[in-house]
């Protein structure tokens, strides 16, 4: 069993923070002192109900303006799973935060205000979840209490959303619709007394039943070397261990591997986790690997299985989500960080930009602004070893660093 990370998306005031607060409250995850603080503040503000968003909106500016500015991570657990929920801001100008929240999540909740239905923002949120290949998406139609818990209202919104789904390019995505009232608690953890017509699961029931093995995207094993361990002690005089995290698949002792970029072949001699030897290193384990032969391996190199080579190239096309206030420009030079491997990159061309309302594309663009999403061609100063994002979520993505500011300026998903 594992941790399930969930990203939330919705426009301002659709009720994301309230929904998360409600999940915490109904699963009894709020401690007494936190509850008291919420009660106290709700009262001070003259509310006649508990404002659960107070449980998640942590920054002063957020409490003052009553909105979520930055991604907050909220933790709770049930008897079967641990959950980490990213409460992400909904404004257009925070598209980048949504991409960020989704990048570490395996499931997403898109909120829709039942009174407003599918709006431009919904389009954007769905697009981003699709782009990031989030496997399980829950469309929570919220504030059902404000539309008299009407089945027709729910069905209309569902039909509108299904129209969007026709346009997606990631067909494996599973989409589930749930009518909820975050404020009153209908169909969040407890079944609604007001919507007999809905026979599906509550939000929590759905999350509890998600098969986590299923939800992680499986690919071929990749082992980017983070750090070389050379103890230089009497006992471990000749020890040269390659420390890193296994992505995509598993690696076992005896596997024939190729070291990239040198293309040297060797065999896995041992796999250590701390002082214990293991036969197999599963996906997402942080292990130390030793090889049969003395080969030159350093940080940024990658071990892969013979016959399972990734693409090795100095040129690539990627969908880029730009996150910096300085524009990305054609001809611009950046640091590209692919996993733990860094190289220099030059922007050769911007093929097209996705329209901000996701209605289509815009050609002939020469620069990108913060929150833009576009298809970009890059040339690198040395080859990297990548897979297409569609086939490998980790080995198919990179970040772009602006070396003038050192900021993480964008993220790319390789075509």
């Amino acid at each position: 069993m594992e941790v399930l990370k969930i990203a939330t998306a919705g426009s301002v005031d659709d009720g994301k923070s309230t929904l998360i607060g409600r999940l915490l409250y109904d699963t009894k995850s709020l401690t007494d002192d936190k509850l008291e603080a919420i009660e106290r503040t709700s009262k001070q503000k003259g509310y006649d109900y508990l404002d659960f968003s107070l449980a998640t909106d942590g920054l002063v500016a957020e409490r003052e303006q009553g909105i979520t500015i930055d991604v907050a991570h909220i933790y709770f657990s049930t008897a079967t799973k641990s959950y980490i929920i990213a409460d992400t801001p909904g404004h257009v100008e925070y598209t980048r935060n949504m991409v960020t929240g989704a990048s570490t999540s395996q499931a997403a909740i898109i909120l829709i205000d039942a009174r407003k239905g599918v709006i431009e923002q919904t389009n954007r949120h769905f697009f981003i979840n699709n782009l990031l290949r989030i496997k399980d998406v829950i469309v929570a139609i919220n504030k059902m209490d404000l539309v008299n818990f009407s089945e027709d209202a729910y069905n209309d919104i569902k039909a509108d959303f299904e129209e969007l789904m026709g346009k997606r390019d990631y067909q494996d995505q599973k989409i589930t619709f749930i009518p909820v009232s975050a404020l009153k608690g209908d169909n969040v953890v407890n079944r609604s007394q007001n919507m007999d017509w809905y026979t599906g699961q509550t939000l929590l029931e759905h999350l509890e039943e998600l098969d986590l093995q299923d939800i992680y995207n499986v690919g071929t094993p990749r082992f980017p070397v983070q750090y070389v361990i050379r103890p230089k002690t009497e006992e471990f005089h000749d020890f040269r261990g390659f420390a890193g995290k296994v992505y995509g698949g598993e690696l076992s002792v005896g596997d024939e591997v190729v070291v990239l970029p040198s293309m040297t072949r060797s065999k896995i001699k041992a796999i250590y986790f701390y002082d214990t030897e293991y036969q197999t290193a599963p996906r997402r384990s942080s292990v130390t690997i030793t090889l049969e032969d003395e080969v030159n391996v350093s940080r940024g190199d990658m071990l892969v299985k013979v016959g399972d080579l990734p693409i090795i190239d100095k040129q690539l096309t990627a969908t880029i989500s730009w996150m910096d206030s300085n524009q990305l420009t054609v001809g611009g030079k950046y640091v590209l960080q692919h996993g733990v491997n860094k190289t220099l990159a030059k922007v050769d061309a911007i093929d097209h930009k996705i329209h901000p309302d996701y209605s289509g594309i815009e050609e002939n663009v020469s620069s990108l602004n913060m929150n833009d999403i576009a298809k970009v061609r890059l040339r690198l100063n040395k080859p990297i070893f990548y897979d297409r994002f569609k086939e490998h979520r980790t080995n198919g993505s990179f970040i772009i660093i602006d070396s003038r500011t050192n900021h993480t300026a964008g993220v790319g998903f390789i075509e």
Partner: protein
Amino acid sequence: MSTLAEEIKNPFTLTAPERPNANALEHEAIYILREVAAQFERPVLLFSGGKDSITLVRLAQKAFWPAKIPFPLMHIDTGHNFPETIEFRDKLVEELGVELIVRNVQDSIDQGKVVEETGKYASRNILQTTTLLDAIEEFKFDACIGGARRDEEKARAKERIFSVRDDFGQWDEKNQRPELFDMLNGQIEMGQNVRVFPISNWTELDVWSYIQKENIEIPSIYFAHKRNTFLRDGLIWSAEDGVVFRAEDEKVEERIVRFRTVGDMSCTAAVESYADTIDKVVSEIRDSKISERGARIDDKRSEAAMEKRKQQGYF
């Protein structure tokens, strides 16, 4: 031979099924620690002697085995420590064979850089910041590894894993770098440094379950013991060692207590508890109705207390 896959899936056969995931968190933390060692020239692990920093030390041992931990530990000593934690610290450092740096808040006071607080709520907790920033400058540390967790406090929930601080140690919470997938960007300018939080995604219960599973030794004050105490504002304070200011009408009584966090003595209250073994502590935390920081007066000063301290360079 047990498979690592099984362990990742079912790490806590002893205490399952409450938090069965801590191993996934362990592998994430090890990945982060290795990134620190690889990306920075002068990292340091901030060691308070508390359970979170003890957990960090164990994770660092695992990350670099069979080599030694490739960075020193640093303790910013408020001088208001529980004596047990200092003994514990020195023993641990000796066992690990790593360098320990100690910098004292008392020195910052003596040098006139900070002024000791007075009165009922006097604490050296905030004064630590100055001592820490001076030490960072003195040793030119570019990465400081800390044991903060996002579940501790609302402002912490917004914290990045690599959190960039400027020359003044300040945290610009509105201008944080996005962290995508598990790629960590450690590029900084001269004078900047990064605070690193490898156990960001752990909860208090995760830490305790880990200590239980790994059989990690921790200072005795975490377990139920008899102590002379007094009550103030509904919290239990230690009346021993004379660190916490006590008014004459605040009556001393012996109680069976333990500590849930071990910060500066002057702002860490005890809780009544009979949990005198790690197993009992884990069950107590699991059933607890009060959050960990509920017993820390420094957060109660105002609702925005933590955020303000962080902006000023607090841990």
